[in-house]
């Protein structure tokens, strides 16, 4: 598998480590509820199909990336920096 790091160019998957679904957003701040946090920490959509997920280019530029990848075929549709992902994310 190859991931095209927006900073470094296409690299072997061996250079990256995986965190998981990019969708859950941390409920920040003192007002956050335990239930919302438990959901953020544990619950996943885990779809068979397109999946936006967090990868870390640990053996490269240390960037966290959002990779849109099909979990059935491993085909990658997009690789974004966090800044790009935030800019393009639906409001």
């Amino acid at each position: 598998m190859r991931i095209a790091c927006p900073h470094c160019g296409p690299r072997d998957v061996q250079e990256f480590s995986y965190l998981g679904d990019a969708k859950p957003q941390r409920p920040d701040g003192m007002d956050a509820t335990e239930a919302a946090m438990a959901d953020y920490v544990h619950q996943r959509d885990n779809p068979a199909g397109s999946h936006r997920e967090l990868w870390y280019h640990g053996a490269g530029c240390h960037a966290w990336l959002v990779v849109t990848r099909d979990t059935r075929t491993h085909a990658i549709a997009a690789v974004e920096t966090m800044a790009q992902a935030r800019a393009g994310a639906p409001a």
Partner: protein
Amino acid sequence: MSASTQPFRRDDGGLIDRNRPLSFRFDDRAYQGFDGDTLASALLANGIRLVGRSFKYHRPRGILSAGAEEPNALVELRSGARREPNTRATVTELFEGLEALSQNRWPSLAFDLLSVNSLLGPALQAGFYYKTFMWPASFWEKLYEPLIRRAAGLGRAAGLEDPDHYEKAFAFCDVLVIGGGPAGIAAALAAGRSGARVILCDEDGRFGGRLLAERREIDGQPAAVWLSAALAELASLPDVTIMPRSTVFGVYDHGVYGVVERVSDHLAVPPPHQPRQRSWRITARRAVLAAGAIERPIVFAGNDTPGVMLAGAVRSYLNRFGVLPGREAVVFTAGDDGWTTARDLAAAGVRVAAVVDPRSGIDPALTGLAGRIGARIITGAVAAAAGGRALRAVTVREASGREESIACDLLAVSNGWNPTLHLTSHQNTRPVWDEAIHAFVPGTMPVGLSVAGSAAGRFSLAEALADGARLGREAAADIGFDSAAEPATPITDPEGVALSPVWRVKGGKGKAFVDFQNDVTDADIELAAREGFKPVEHLKRYTTLGMATDQGKTSNIAGLAIMAEQTGQTIPQTGTTIFRPPYTPVAIGALAGHHRGRDFRPTRMSPTHSWSQRQGAVFIEAGAWMRAQYYPRPGETDWLTSVNREVLAVRNGVGLCDVSTLGKIDIQGADAADFLERVYCNGFKALQVGKARYGLMLREDGFVMDDGTTSRLGETHFLMTTTTANAGKVMQHLEFCHQVLWPRLDVRMVSVSEHWAQAAIAGPKARAVLQGVVDAEHDISNEAFPYLAARAVTVGGGIPARLFRISFSGELAYELAVPAGYGEAMMDAVMAAGSAHGITPYGTEALGVMRIEKGHVAGNELSGQTTARDLGLGKMMSSKKDYLGRLMARREALVEAERPCLIGFRPVDPAQRLRAGAHFIGIGKPATMQHDEGYMTSVAYSPVLGHWIGLGLLKNGPQRIGERIRAVDPVREGDVEIEICSPVFVDPEGTRLHG
């Protein structure tokens, strides 16, 4: 050199070098072959037919094929530590001194006692073992299984460390061409001419594919002329790389191909500094599969008799290797292709007794050929082959049912070809049935891969050349490499491809094999159908069809055809199995490459490593690092003596310990303090510049992740330390927190772990020693440099350094950091300054003893299963701010009163030893899970106290000080009465720390 020692060698012809004879041994007898031979061709040249025994029935087996699909001719190649079991003789290039043994026979190949299994054959049908050997249960491991295991298996592994070395390599190209036959060469030429970077791989040592085995013409000349011109042109193209002896074994995501290059397998031993094999990870933007096709046998009684051979293989031996696979041949063919074998046999002087072809209406050109070579034409089929260890005769059955026996020592079988499409299904897509050619052809393809020639089911040479040229060109053009005008496709001599396959000839006497290597017969498949194992995966798993080392390259189709016949379905309705990587088996050593022994993973060395070596340190692996464990002195015979001395030296005087391995992260920015507030559970905003603080980091799920001290070097500048083990993990975590969670925070971080050498100077005399090391202008008196001070200083006359007054041992202690290059100088300087004070180097063991004496937590307590409260650090969790893990740490289970908490232990009988991993059970209570109250996390012998001490996690621990309990350690037969005590064994008031 004459070929007189090789009775079945032709007088001339073939791609062998008769001027370079090679000696080899098979089953301890000496033979000769020629350079250019395979082991199989050399054996055949010497008249050796019987080369192995089959897996289950130990039937005599000969050479079936001339390629990687060979199911029978598997040998143990080489000897001693280089012995390679299950090696295909058909793809083993002959070298001087080659040694091979036949396998799976006892006592000898010719006389194999286990061939008695053949007599038991009727009982040993598919799945028989599922139905018996059940009573009594204990007999399985004791009796049945050892018998089965001894009989099973094929060759014997060397069992010794592989003396050869391996390596990996990475390559990139625009177009990867897989297969160096006519289609592949045409593809590589077309792509290469466009300027694209091309890699052309073939598993063979010689390029040309089937052209090497056939008597074909291209553009009116022998194909060899075209071939050498094409190879010369490829060699002249600077961005074309030709890789012989290189098998593309697997297709992985995004154009990554696994390739194994057999660098030295054609030699007796690898030349100096050369690997035996090299495994390549090739990344290709496009690839053309031109892997050719594999010929199919026919299922009939005795079809495994040595002397029954695929018709295409017969041509390979005749034409490429100059070998006569027999002297009296019968050809059994279901298509035009077999007739070519008859022609080539006759041309080589082999008497062709008959051509047996069940088809009517055969091309008169072919039947005319038979007349010219004096072969009978029989419209019918071969129903049986007989002869045991060597073919003597075949029973031919005409369409009328009339049977006759024809004497022969070679039966060439031709039943059409299967495209070598294995790589196309490596991404779990299935081949599809092509009724026109009676074969599976590639289905949905991996992205970027196209298929040319025979591998696509386009079997003629003309199609191979045209496909290759077109697809090579298209692949390159697809990624922007356009060629000039397309050159004309070469013109080839005519060939017939008509075929009407025969899957099985029923009614012969004896076993009819579908899968030769796993001894699966047609009757096994019928039984599987009867018992409901009809889905193809069930068929495969129940009968083991296609599960042998050849992955069913010659057997899968016939198996499907027979199942289809049983179920009344068509072959495509019955299904197909997908081929799994690798295409052919790959040596484990090759895929490991350099990474074995000490080189399995990198070893990290502290900048003071050689200093410690000079001090006589004993080193220990600590994660990726080598660390000094203790420094034995002459006369000290056990580690505990040394460690006790080191601990006492620190407690009573001063010691020096390398702590360079701690992770060090430089954190800067206007929001650095805010950032630390969020990643640590305790507060950092109020930390003064020039001070250090112990910090505790939780995971978001509320459990403890890591700890360490973090110092404020400036208003917006911090230096975080992490545990040695978690340094990388914490860096990744902080990057996550910054980039993903809180990108708005103005903070930057970088690891500086490698730049600094760091040492702990600990003990009552530590300051006195340091005053001799730190440059005089820096006041490090207790007042100027109190506990938890952290400041830049200089040492050695101006070398920038950092000094931290922090302590793991509980003594007056400092950590001094200097640029790594000065690490050893620092150790020397500290030793020199400390010599008057009796300074003693100490290692990780003494460090561990002292931290346990002080009740500090370390790796054994930071198990990922403990909360801050469990570790007695609950008060550190701030209630005034949000931080990672805050909410999840409040979950019901994490705040449960009964949770085991950190506490100290000492043996009631001070002579008794404690052991980490022991569990706590109440006195008088049974040692069962229900009474388990926790476990001992860490133990040490305290030379200060003169007995063993321990830390552990115990239910309600802190409330039970003074209570007695047992440390039960069944795996070491330990059961020690212990007293619960404070986890701080030495200097509980902390006065030494501030001294």
